[in-house]
């Protein structure tokens, strides 16, 4: 796999190779999250997109500086609404505890929820409008806490875990394929909220220019030590050029290229650390008594239950853990891009593609999950050049003006779907356990 990425580096450019590598690492984290749920416990979660987006939201809320004006304009209303929500939840909990299950109880809870939602909607309206009116071209939202963005990786995990707790409480009792549909739809609801609650996330107006944990290219290009470093690396190439002015120009070009490679390398380092930590933790968990218990529950729920294992609780726990890992990946993704675009969260890219990675890589095997993330992401990105090459190869005899050939070349970007689909189908048919199947060693 690494060889392939190196080949991209040599044939296309190191910049592309590194950005593919970084996204491979992020995909690997997501896949590990899904793999924990599916491979360890047999829980199907098609809501990966929702957790990814929540992780991204965490990155925004943590790193953006608070917008003081917006807080003054509508902060109070928002806090009041939050407080109302808390009160509502507490009242419902109280009713659930104090009263016996009856029709009246169900109806009164429904009434409380509906009237609560209406109350919040009408009481928060002026606040939301005031916040969104504050310099809508630049801010128009409450902003965040102004902390370093790295913290958002933890907060993203907490957000996603919190959502998973609610979803798990609601949906985990369902049969597998219903669980899949329910989680898919819940994640769509989450995206709808993130997209349209402008006071919180700026919605489809996007948040750009997030802080970075890595240095900026522009700063690097004027830093002495970095220029020296580039000079040293390319001394062979530079010494060939005799003319001093030409040499300076070549150096400048190299520095500009080098700076973006260097930034990407910084990200790769950070992401690698996360992947390695997660890999160690998940491997430890897999071979611990807890991991054995999870497999027992997965393979025979009733028997595990009879042995005194609390299946419901363990399912909920693993659902939260897996989703939290996906949340970390979501925050990492936004950190790397430096922007948060709620409109870009689509189930194709963030749910189904991740599932292809899990299945292709090998469910239940953490190395398989990472391999799946790498292979599938690499193919997803490089599918267009590969299919372009193939089309040109097979239609070499046909003139350029041929309508069919032109049409095929025009639709090159869509061959990636074909590749993914065929890959998934072939793996499912001929190697149902994935490239690296689950290996259980009993010591």
């Amino acid at each position, binding site marked *: 796999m690494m060889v392939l990425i190196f080949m991209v580096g040599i044939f296309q450019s190191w910049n592309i190779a590194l950005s593919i590598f970084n996204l491979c690492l992020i995909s690997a984290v997501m896949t590990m999250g899904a793999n924990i749920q599916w491979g360890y416990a047999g829980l199907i979660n098609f809501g990966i997109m929702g957790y990814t987006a929540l992780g991204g939201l965490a990155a925004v809320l943590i790193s953006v500086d608070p917008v003081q004006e917006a807080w003054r304009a509508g902060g109070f209303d928002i806090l009041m609404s939050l407080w109302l929500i808390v009160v509502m939840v507490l009242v419902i909990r109280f009713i659930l505890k104090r009263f016996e299950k009856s029709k009246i109880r169900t109806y009164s809870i429904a009434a409380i929820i509906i009237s609560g939602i209406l109350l919040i909607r009408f009481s928060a309206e002026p606040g939301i409008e005031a916040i969104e009116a504050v310099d809508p071209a630049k801010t128009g939202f409450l902003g965040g806490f102004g902390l370093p963005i790295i913290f958002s990786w933890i907060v993203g995990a907490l957000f996603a875990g919190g959502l998973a707790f609610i979803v798990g409480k*609601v949906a985990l009792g369902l049969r*597998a394929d219903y669980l899949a549909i329910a989680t898919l739809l819940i994640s769509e609801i989450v995206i709808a909220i993130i997209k349209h609650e402008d006071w919180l996330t700026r919605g489809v107006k996007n948040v750009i220019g997030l802080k970075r944990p890595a240095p900026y290219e522009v700063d690097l290009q004027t830093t002495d030590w970095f220029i020296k470093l580039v000079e040293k690396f390319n001394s062979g190439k530079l010494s060939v050029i005799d003319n001093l002015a030409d040499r300076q120009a070549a150096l400048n070009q190299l520095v500009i290229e080098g700076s973006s490679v260097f930034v990407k390398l910084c990200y790769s380092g950070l992401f690698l650390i996360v992947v390695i930590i997660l890999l160690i933790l998940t491997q430890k968990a897999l071979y611990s008594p807890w991991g054995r218990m999870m497999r027992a529950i997965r393979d025979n729920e009733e028997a595990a239950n009879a042995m005194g294992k609390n299946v419901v609780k363990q399912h909920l726990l693993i659902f939260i853990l897996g989703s939290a890992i996906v949340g970390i990946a979501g925050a990492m993704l936004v950190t790397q891009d430096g922007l948060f675009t709620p409109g870009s969260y689509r189930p194709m890219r963030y749910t189904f593609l991740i599932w292809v990675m899990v299945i292709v890589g090998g469910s239940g095997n953490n190395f398989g999950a990472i391999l799946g993330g790498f292979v599938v992401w690499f193919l997803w990105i490089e599918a267009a050049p590969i299919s372009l090459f193939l089309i040109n190869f097979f239609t070499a005899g046909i003139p350029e003006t041929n309508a069919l050939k032109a049409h095929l070349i025009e639709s090159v970007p869509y*061959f990636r779907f074909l590749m993914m*689909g065929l890959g998934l189908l072939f793996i499912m048919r001929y190697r149902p356990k994935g490239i690296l199947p689950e290996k259980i060693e009993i010591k």
Partner: protein
Amino acid sequence: MDFINAIILLLNYIFIPALTYGSQLALGAIFVTLIYGILRFANFATGDMMSFGTMTTILFTWYFQSLGVSLGVLPTALLAIPFGIIFMIFYMLLIDKFVFKYYRHQKSPPVQFAMVSIGVMFVTQAVVRIIIGPADRRFFDGEKFIIKAREFKEMTGLNEGLALKSTQVITIFVTIVLVSLLFWFLNRTKTGKSMKAYSDNEDLALLSGIDPKKIVLVTWIIAGILATIGGALYGLDKSFKPFTYFNNMLPIFAAAIVGGIGNPFGAFLGGYVIAFSEILLTYAYKKFFMYILPESMEPNSLVQLLSTDYKFAVSFSILVIVLIYRPSGIFKGKVL
């Protein structure tokens, strides 16, 4: 007078659009439910299969238009639908032979089927996009309106206009005909009854001499008809774009489950439940209240329960609530 105006307003903006949208969803939902009941898996390729059917219909429509064939006031697409259906069924049988058949013989769990259908979803999506491209396409021709809003106003002297698009009438009419035919088939013919038997209890059905191959074949044929017509009607009414079709899969699933999955009649009604609740909850009632309330009580705000951005979220929330409180759906389907 004001009262009639209010009724017309609701008819124009809520009732007719919801009925049309509901019909389109209902066809898709019956498709999902049939596959679920008889082949026993949740078909994630639903939306893309519908877009494949629509695509073939569009290609034939273009062909007929180029030949100069048309139906006068009716859209040419109606003529193209039967040909689209043939290709759709052919494609579905091909997929069944090369993909699903193997897992059926293996007696794989439903989850595995669902995963495989995701593979089919990717492939179908690629095929559609490679053949016709991802762009937004309109293929409607013929007369657009049956009643125009302005004509209606002049005719009745009311303030509110009632616009009736021909696609809406076609959609509702075709849906009623198709669904009645389908229920007649399922309840009255021998093949239909054996399909029901197979869905209820596979082993018992096999013992009583029902040929599973025939059942599967007929199921795919019906599914092909439903998918193509449902997709084509949606495309006629709005427009054809592969991405929207993929997204439509979600409310269709919601409709099928709300109605009780495995139960065609439930799916049919589920489509309307979803469509009506989506539109009822996101419509701004300001004008309606202006007509029926005295002037002093007129509302200042839009009187909208949820902003229209949450249209999809409404149907999904309904689904989640149904799943929690009545997992077998409104009309008892298969119990989970």
